[in-house]
């Protein structure tokens, strides 16, 4: 029940994000709009301390996704986990 509730919250968040920022807004644009300095510092931290390739190949594609996709994907993940746990939900 808890996982399904979290999923419902995430789906609701996706809807709110789409309504607030528009369906085409990227996740990166939304984060930048909320706190530009934090996203910039995160990028610098990944590229300078971990790997430039990690940022370019993993984080940039994620950040380029429409903002609502991220909570929908997470919500779906929680629904799947819930469905795979026998006797619970």
């Amino acid at each position: 029940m808890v996982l399904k509730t979290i999923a419902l919250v995430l789906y609701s968040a996706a809807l709110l994000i789409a309504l607030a920022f528009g369906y085409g807004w990227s996740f990166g644009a939304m984060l930048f709009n909320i706190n530009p300095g934090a996203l910039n510092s995160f990028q610098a931290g990944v590229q300078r301390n971990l790997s430039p390739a990690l940022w370019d190949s993993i984080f940039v594609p994620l950040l380029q996704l429409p903002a609502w996709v991220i909570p929908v994907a997470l919500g779906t993940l929680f629904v799947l986990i819930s469905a795979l746990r026998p006797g619970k939900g």
Partner: protein
Amino acid sequence: MPIRIPRGWEIPESRVTPEALVLGRRRGLALGAGLLAAPATALAQGAPPALPPAMRNTRYAPGRDITDEREATSFNNFYEFGSHKTISRAAQRLPQRPWTVKVEGMVESPREFGIEDLLRFMPLEERVYRLRCVEAWSMVVPWTGFPLSALLDAVRPLGSARYVVFETAAIPAVMPGLRQSWYPWPYIEGCTIEEAANELSFMVVGAYGKPLPPQNGGPIRFHQPWKYGFKAGKSIVRITLTDRRPVSFWERVQPQEYGFWANVNPEVPHPRWSQASERVLGTNARVPTQIFNGYGEFVAALYTGLRNERLWA
């Protein structure tokens, strides 16, 4: 016996610019009119041709050894290619020719200059400047270029122009950083018209006697050595004179940390680190940072009377 202290602009006869260089500059200004009609010289993409000869101007002695060329050309900030320092290889994809720079806005004669025309007609000289990055490292580079004032003379700014804005190229096909569409591209920087007219303000087209490499902002960048390095736009495609103070790229991204003026001051720390000293690139040395990066005699007067301004961020 009176003691006479020479002012910053007073130099001995031995350091006077040779006549040939002065006449060359005048010839260039006269030919500037020809640039109006002449199309920008278009060359094939690839390596730019060798720089015309440029004499070193010894008026701006750096007081430190020149940074090793390999260091200066392999440790670079160029956000369009990434926020790390090893962007030099990726930057090679930035085509250096053909290249034009538009100078427009509040000027009598807006123009588009081909880079070859600038190399041919501007008064090229070499200046060895210190460069102080806001990240508390520094280097000393022999830049080849020409005073910004020479370029502005060619377009004749209107009296109402108060600011000069520099715009960096934005070419998504070769600049992976532009995939991060949430940043406020293109990279914009600016200064006041008084700062632009200062003798230290320098348009750079070369380094170490060679064409300016793309990772350092080739084929043409700006440099004001008394300011933190991020104020110097790289790979410039447009210069606009305006009466409105520009909001630069970094002011939009991190306004608490990066402002319009960004003059070097060791006593004003960055919000996340001290600016009291700097690591000299290519050495293990850490040296005290100087106010205005040591160029105070040339520029301090620009800021007298300015109140309620964040001059040091």
